């Protein structure tokens, strides 16, 4: 167990993200890629994800403003978004994306709108949590955070 209280706190925070289903195994893959040469790899990837996915979210919002819905387009956008989200291990966000796509496929506009709202909530929640996590990680010291788990 981590000696440093900050590190310990970091570990606890990290574990809860997994336990509560915010993150999945893919996040661990990212962590394992982090090494001395790229000590902040995970944070960099997550930052890139949020930057890029913000664009997709915006496109989705715009598409959802046009009635009637272009389900193909929505599905396509969500496919992209899902791919990105899954690659960082954003488990809940990914689940919401899948749900959204189901609604698209069945042409359920109402379902799409609801699913999108839910998705955005999860997306924002995760963002906050990860930001807090990385901030703590930086404070806790680079050595530990760079250490590969497993």
């Amino acid at each position, binding site marked *: 167990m981590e000696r440093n209280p900050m590190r310990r706190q970091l570990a606890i925070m990290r574990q809860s993200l997994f336990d509560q289903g915010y993150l999945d195994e893919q996040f661990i*893959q990212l962590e*394992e890629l982090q*090494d001395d*040469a*790229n000590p902040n790899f995970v944070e960099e990837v997550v930052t890139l994800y949020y930057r890029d996915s913000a664009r997709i979210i915006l496109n989705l919002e715009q598409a959802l403003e046009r009635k009637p819905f272009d389900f193909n387009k929505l599905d*396509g956008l969500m*496919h992209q978004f899902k*791919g*990105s989200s899954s690659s*960082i291990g954003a488990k809940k966000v990914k689940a919401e994306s899948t749900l959204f796509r189901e609604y698209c496929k069945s042409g359920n506009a109402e379902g799409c709108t609801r699913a999108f709202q839910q998705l955005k909530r999860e997306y924002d929640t995760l963002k906050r949590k990860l930001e807090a996590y990385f901030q703590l990680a930086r404070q806790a010291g680079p050595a530990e955070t760079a250490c590969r788990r497993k």
Partner: protein
Amino acid sequence: MNSSGGKGSMSTASSSAAWKAGDVVPDQFPAGLRVLVVDDDPTCLMILEKMLRTCLYEVTKCNRAETALSMLRENKNGFDIVISDVHMPDMDGFKLLEHIGLEMDLPVIMMSADDGKHVVMKGVTHGACDYLIKPVRIEALKNIWQHVVRKRKNEWKDFEQSGSVEEGDRQPKQSEEADYSSSANEGNWKSSKKRKDDDDEAEERDDTSTLKKPRVVWSVELHQQFVAAVNQLGIDKAVPKKILELMNVPGLTRENVASHLQKYRLYLRRLSGVSQHQSNLNNSFISPQEATFGPLSPLNGLDLQTLAATGQLPAQSLATLQAAGLGRSTAKSGIAMPLVDQRNIFSFENPKLRFGEGQQQHMNNNKQINLLHGIPTTMEPKQLASLHHSAQSIGNMNVQVTSHGVQGSQNNSLLIQMAQPQPRGQILNDSAGSHAPRLPSTMGQPILSNGIAANVSTRNGIPENIRGPGYNPVSQTSSMLNFPMNHTSELPGNSFPLGSTPGISSLTSKGAFQEDLNSDIKGSGGFMPSYDIFNDLNQHKPQNWELQNVGMTFDASQHSNSLQGNLDLAQSVLVQQGFSSGQMNGQNRSAAVVSKAMFSAGDCTEQGNAQNVNHHLNNLLVDNTIRIKSERVADAGPANLFPDHFGQDDLMSALLKQQEGIAPAENEFDFDGYSMDNIPV
């Protein structure tokens, strides 16, 4: 790589050096494997890059398919494997896959968050060597090197299997050549090549009738060489003996050339002549039934070209030629028109199909079988466009397209030209939209490309005879079309509009058939690919060829035709290291490799260094696999290929069957020359 030390820093040369088909793989392998990863999603791209680096691979990332293609084209031997996303904004991943397969013959792994069976199947049918579901785990990437090795081994195997007399001599040489580890090898290769050439030449001549004649697979490269030779001699003066001499491909016999020339003439005739009929011819070409089917396709184009060059062949003679060449009934009465409604190989009619989009439907609707035999319909539009582009006048079209004349588009024009003025005009007009440009006013140029295109196009409905160019079996017709189209710029040296990527992909994408066809094409002769490749080559790096040529001592001379020269070299070199000349890659490689002779390390375009040679070799291997694929497809083809209207489903199933069973399609292509890959059943 990060601090991984030596491994990570393995140079390209050494990494390729590591690749010795059949040899013990160097310790560091697969470290240093050169991977090109293409994905529009920056997050995924970043993660993949890091994962691949962790696997000790050399990674190049790219977020646009077009960029990736140009990177690949510029540096044909610069990569060992490509990983690409399926959904990308600028180009469909499958299209990219087709292009790569056609042009460079590299193993391609598709990825997507989409794990639907349909999509995965599409990957299979388009020739992807693997399909990864996102999110990709590093474990999945650790073993991608197997695809590279597998491909190379297959190529080698093909090579070795080509049953030619020379085989005996060649094999030892091949193994030398297969060693593409470094310039040292290149040196060996060169000398082996020379040795081989001498031996082969002598043997060839003697053995043609007595020894078992290996089937010659008229790969794109080989065909280009042929076309170059024909052009050089002048279509009317092009006699097999002289062509053979010019081509200087070890192991190639006068008979091989003669039969190929016959087909080529038919092809040319077709090009200039009856558009619809042509398609018919094409169809017949494609019909696998004939043993000579495979080879015919390319030949058809050639023939036509020749015909075109000489001025229109009378329908009758053309028909005769075709019939002879094809051995099929389609050639009846002059230009077999019938196929007009078949999918058009070259959809002259559909200019808009040009890039694939239209193609598919076009193909299906039109059913025209491209005039050119075996010219894939898809190619057509493009080709036509290119044809038009250059030629502007139907009468002349001569395949301007590439010096060597064969560019997909050219074929079209040739077809157009050939034959009857009327039809031609029409054809041109129709296709003009799309392709035409290529046809140069002087027909001198072989229309090879057209033929190829035709070959490709036949994909649509026509059973594949297209084998020639070895396009990727991707069935989108549209892709084929695109292919030639792009090429409007005709590469002076290149006969094949390989460069035009769109076309390439289109080739492959033509519908189910196409797949078969494609594969055939790839294998057999890869005409189609040649076009592009050559074009590409020309465009991109003429110098490379020169270099290569120089090395190869081939008289690549010609300028942009150097491609052909390269081909020659490659071919003569036989199996040498991979001629993967970067550009020629796609087709050349396959073609070259396939035909025993092909393995010449000659690879032309490579930047002319030893390393390239190595790479080439690698590529060759890769190519071989492609060939094999096509061969396989061919098998499936015969039965299906034939009908004028092949249900795509039939083709598809045939294709699938083939793919599963890996039927030795190779037989189909029996050109009476070397069989490049006798894929055992």
